[in-house]
């Protein structure tokens, strides 16, 4: 089943293309990380998918419902955590959850039970009886998350869910998100790559309103695995460097000094061949190997590469 599907979804503000022909499919019960730098079109996408903004053209389906003007069936199936959740300051946390529960027409007893569960989930049981006006930003964020869960949504949209949280709060929210995917699809827009690495099953990268790539995190790593090999020997590696210079499926061999240690770095023009042949060459060199590593980029490096290239690979 597909939780989110978009076809050429676009939003233009005059000549500015905030979102340009987004074609996306997000399956059920995954955590989808929507990555992009500031101003890439992440919040615009969330607004379009939740019906808060009307597309210039294209269409979208969420939880089997066509996204459009005031589709109340859609609203009953989704949850939304805005980037900066705002509440009625004069309400207490419990008042707010009761208000949301009443909108979903839940019986009073169910509202009370669900509110207690959710407040406990985010460690707000005691603060639940206090006015929201006195909440810290982190507490507001946590209240924002649980108000979006009141109706057990099928698709949960979270716009920068961890941006206002301290490291402990962030860890707890990410654990919560990982737990939630058993019952919901989570569409999480963020620019925090470590969060994506930690909880997301799939990643979409957007920049300047255009979707650049969609993939699983594992595939993304595989796809962007660097073709650079790093080799360290106890002995002087200059003779081996000369050997590598003569090999046509390698390029740019060089010795660089990292933290005072000389490291022989070489780029493979044919990665598969390098994987097979390079260890043999090292063995034949007679040198004492201390490190042999294929450059594994962090998600941040991949992200930077994708965004700077801006191409689909």
């Amino acid at each position: 089943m597909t939780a989110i599907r978009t076809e050429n979804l676009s939003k233009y503000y005059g000549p500015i293309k905030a979102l340009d022909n987004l074609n996306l499919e997000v399956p059920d019960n995954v955590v989808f990380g929507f990555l992009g730098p500031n101003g890439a079109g992440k919040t615009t996408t969330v607004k379009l998918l939740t019906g808060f903004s009307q597309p210039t053209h294209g269409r979208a389906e969420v939880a089997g419902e066509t996204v459009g003007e005031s589709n109340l069936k859609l609203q009953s199936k989704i949850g939304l955590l805005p980037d900066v959740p705002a509440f009625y300051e004069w309400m207490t946390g419990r008042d707010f959850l009761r208000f949301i529960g009443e909108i979903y027409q839940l019986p009073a007893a169910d509202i009370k039970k669900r509110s207690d569960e959710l407040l406990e989930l985010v460690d707000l049981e005691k603060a639940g009886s206090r006015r929201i006006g006195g909440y810290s930003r982190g507490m507001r964020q946590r209240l924002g998350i649980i108000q979006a869960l009141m109706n057990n949504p099928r698709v949960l949209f979270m716009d920068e869910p961890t941006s206002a949280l301290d490291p402990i709060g962030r860890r707890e929210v990410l654990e919560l998100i990982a737990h939630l995917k058993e019952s919901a699809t989570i569409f999480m827009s963020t620019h925090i790559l470590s969060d994506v690495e930690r909880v997301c099953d799939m990643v979409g990268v957007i920049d300047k309103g255009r979707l650049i790539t969609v993939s699983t995190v594992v595939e993304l790593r595989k796809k962007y695995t660097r073709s650079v090999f790093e080799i360290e020997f106890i002995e002087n590696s200059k003779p081996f460097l000369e050997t590598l210079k003569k090999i046509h499926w390698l390029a740019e061999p060089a010795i660089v000094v990292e933290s005072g240690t000389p490291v022989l770095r070489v780029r493979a023009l044919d990665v598969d061949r390098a994987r097979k042949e390079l260890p043999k060459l090292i063995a034949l060199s007679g040198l004492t190997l201390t490190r042999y590593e294929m450059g594994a980029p962090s998600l941040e490096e991949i992200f930077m590469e994708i965004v700077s290239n801006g191409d689909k690979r």
Partner: protein
Amino acid sequence: MIGIFPLLKKELMEQLRTYKLLIVGVIFLFFGITTPLTLKYLPEIIELAGGSGFEIAIPPPTGVQSLQEYAGTVGQIGVLLAVLMAMGSIANERKNGTAVITLSKPVSRAAFVNAKIIGTTLTFLASLFAASLFCYGYTVWLIGDADLLAFIGNNLLIALFLIFCLAITLLFSSVFRSSLAAGGISLGLLIGQAGLSAIPRIGDFFPGKLLSWGNSLLMGESNNYWAALIITVISIITCLYFSQRFLSHRDI
């Protein structure tokens, strides 16, 4: 209007907890109580103040005069209060983001707008009722008898006019994110229509004429302005309709 009841409940709670009901109530009550008191004791007040050296002959006040002065003051203050109360009710929710969370739930835009006007209207009606009760009571007690039915009719016309002021302000509150812009334009339009309602013939079609009608009732005159009443009701409905249409078509 899906979701109207929880939204209305929230609006009523807001009127109470943010002291809006108290503020409007106290202001209306102030004029409801002080108008007949001031009229009755004006000669004594002047005398206590030491007088001006001249003898001023003040005719004894009448019940009608007291109710007329009260109605005139409440009509003017009511317009200001209506604009102040309604100018931020949607604009501020859009600006600070509370509208996003509320409207991400299964509630219609119509319910969102109507809950607001009903909640604020109830505050005004409760305040107007209490103030008018005191005003009439003090007037009859201190000054003299007055036509109760005419006073009720006058209050109903003031109430309808204030609902019109609320509706027009709500409309602009849904158009602009700035409550100041919403309030400024609404107040400008209300002042404009008040000016136009003073023009003979043409003025008979403007909502401001409802206040003149109320005054005529108190004076026992037979003037009536049904066209203004019908246009006011149509204007209220139109403002509410376009308010929710604006909310539906604009980015929240």
